[in-house]
């Protein structure tokens, strides 16, 4: 082996001696629950129930316009 190979071995040995071996190679936490939480946090979609509620509000305010100040009073 050439002297270059010895130098590499020397440097490798020195580095191994200087840096302690890592023991925490495994993940510190299970990432799957976090992934599930992200999936659950999908933006809320506008369904039939929300449409019915919006229609109810519109009808109530159209039939009873005197409710508008009362609703604004609570917002």
């Amino acid at each position, binding site marked *: 082996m050439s002297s270059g190979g010895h130098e590499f071995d020397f440097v490798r040995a020195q580095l191994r001696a200087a840096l302690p071996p890592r023991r925490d190679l495994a993940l510190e936490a299970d990432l799957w629950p976090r992934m599930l939480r992200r999936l659950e946090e999908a933006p809320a979609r506008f369904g039939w129930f929300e449409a019915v509620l919006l229609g109810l509000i519109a009808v*109530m305010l159209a039939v*009873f316009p005197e409710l508008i100040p009362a609703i604004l009073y609570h*917002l």
Partner: protein
Amino acid sequence: MRGHPFLRAYMAGVLLPTWVLLLVLAVYLIAHAGGHVPAGLERAIVFPMAVVPNTWGLWNLLYVALRLRRRLSIGAFGALLPLALVPAGVALAAALDLRFYTAHQAVVALPTAMAAYFLAWKYGVAFLNRAVELR
């Protein structure tokens, strides 16, 4: 953004009614300039300016602090708030002698307010909670 989750919950809850208040104030000022505002109506602004935003903030804080997310949707939780706010609003209106808001009107307004709150909390407050990284 990991610290102070209750402060973040409070601020996220306060924001939406504070924006609506600006709209209400603008409508009030325009109506006032046109001379369409009944005398004494300015006293009514105390409720949406002081009570409503703070109650929204505390209600959202409660939702986060009690970890209700798994058991109750934020829209349903928000829809319960008028059950406390409407009687308080009627009581304050009676104390301030505000004639535009009576107990009879409150009974009619309650389901409408609950529906409006459901939508506001489901889309508005939930979005703000996500924006401040509340889980």
